[in-house]
């Protein structure tokens, strides 16, 4: 990525950019809305990877994640945990995703970097910032032009989680 923004530059990528932005709008709709949670795994390819990584592990290259899913099946198991296996205080999560950069790779996939902020709201408490960080993602474009996540790596700015992480980031 070179250091300047030029009016003529991005126009060629405009369609890609609009499509990627639209994809993240869909992602957030699936991740924020408990009733839409079942559609969340569908936003990944069959062997899609999802990891939520605390800042210190990311920086030091330690492999441990807070959540590690390596297939759509594991993502479904996560959704099932949220929808009935785990006990937790009901909460509303609000994701804001912005500053999206996307680059087409040689192999046809799309590299994405985006900033996110997630606000959590629970009973008896005002809303609070739950997490912020960077998405380090890779999107696959399927034959019909449909985008899905091949990798969704959520790099947290924080190490310390405010008690529990129940919903997808």
């Amino acid at each position: 990525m070179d250091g300047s923004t030029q009016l003529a530059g991005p126009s060629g990528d405009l369609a890609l950019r609009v499509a990627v932005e639209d994809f993240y709008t869909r992602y957030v709709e699936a991740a924020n809305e408990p009733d839409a949670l079942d559609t969340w795994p569908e936003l990944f390819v069959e062997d899609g990877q999802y990891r939520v990584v605390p800042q210190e592990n990311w920086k030091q290259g330690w492999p441990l994640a807070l959540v590690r899913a390596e297939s759509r099946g594991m993502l479904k198991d996560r959704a099932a945990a949220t929808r009935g296996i785990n006990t937790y205080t009901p909460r509303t999560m609000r994701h804001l995703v912005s500053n999206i950069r996307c680059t087409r790779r040689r192999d046809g996939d799309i590299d994405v970097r985006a900033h996110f902020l997630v606000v959590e709201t629970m009973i008896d408490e005002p809303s609070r910032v739950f997490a912020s960080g960077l998405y380090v993602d890779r999107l696959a474009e399927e034959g019909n032009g449909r985008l899905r996540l091949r990798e969704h790596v959520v790099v947290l700015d924080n190490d310390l989680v405010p008690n529990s992480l129940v919903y997808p980031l």
Partner: protein
Amino acid sequence: MDEMARPNPDRVWSDEGYSRVPYWLYTDQEIYDREQALIFQGPFWSYVALSAEIAEPGDFKRTFIGDRSVVVVRGEDGAIHGFENRCAHRGVQFCRAHRGRAKDFMCPYHQWTYDLEGNLIGVPFRRGVKRQGGMPKAFDPKDHGLRKLRTAERHGVVFASFDPAVPPLEEYLGEAMLGYFDRVFDGRELKVLGYQRQRTPANWKLMFENIKDPYHASLLHVFLVTFGLFRADNESSVEMDATGRHAVLVSRKGDQKKTDDLSDMKSFRESLKLNDMRLLDPVREFPGTATVVMQTLWPNLIVQQQSNTLAMRQLVTRGPDAFDLIWTFFGYADDDEAMVTRRLRQANLMGPAGFVSVDDSEVMEFSQVGIAQAPQACGVLEMGGHDTEDTPHMVTESAIRAFYKYYREIMGV
């Protein structure tokens, strides 16, 4: 700490002894302060690090004992030193990184400098500038080192204590607990896989109670019950050291099948199947038949061995109403790639996002808010009777009673 005043006189523990725990214990600042002085700064060994985290001379780790920030560091001589992270000049917490490597520690404020053992080795302008100012002649750096810790290392695990009167570590753990400790820490080199940290809005003792409480596991945790990982009808035991301050819950994995005893376990879901079974692909790696050993070591450590997920859970107190739990996940240096992957997958059960642990961190928050509204009420701990003995089953709260029996002795409440 005899000079400490007795706690508030209306805070009286009921006569029913260890089967009752008064709720003011979880909310009073006075109790919390007393715990810091008598427990976390007392003659006990707090967990601070794995040796693998500070393997080379100069490697340091910033961590906590109670709510005090401390630094542990490997010295030039290979020995481990520890000190409080508080400048002897005017109190600055000089170390502000989780970890790193250092030749010495310099406080940024007036640049007092300490060696790796915590001795003061440099005071700028000590002799003044142009013959003016400077420290008095009598100022001796030897009297102004950092507050030092005792340290002990066993099979790759490092403990520390503020109190020089702490007994030898092996004696402190006792034979039975040492046996379980050495089962995981058998002398093989350990390898850190990474960390998880969470802040739970609950009193620190609720965390210990939770891991000393096998009763809840068969009820609260749908995941454990359904997949037979820890269930009241599995062969299991609760064992303690002679004082009752340390304990283990030991269990052997059963099957995902229905038995008569399950009628009380509403959490059992026969129909629950994982979409991707790679999450639960445990292999036996320790001698004996136990598949889960959860060990609670007074005053700040839980050693987790559930299937192949191994972690140190270190408790950091954050006032009466909150604690941090720092999870250090590890394996062995000689693990093959498949084992590393297995450990990383099974880590999904644990931590702030764990299929199992989320239930605990959330329920502890429910406990704290409930308890806080009635400090004069108390909890009832009668499952398995009133005593504090070991049991060959998990339908008991005896390890919690034993913990409070010892706690009362130490706290004088």
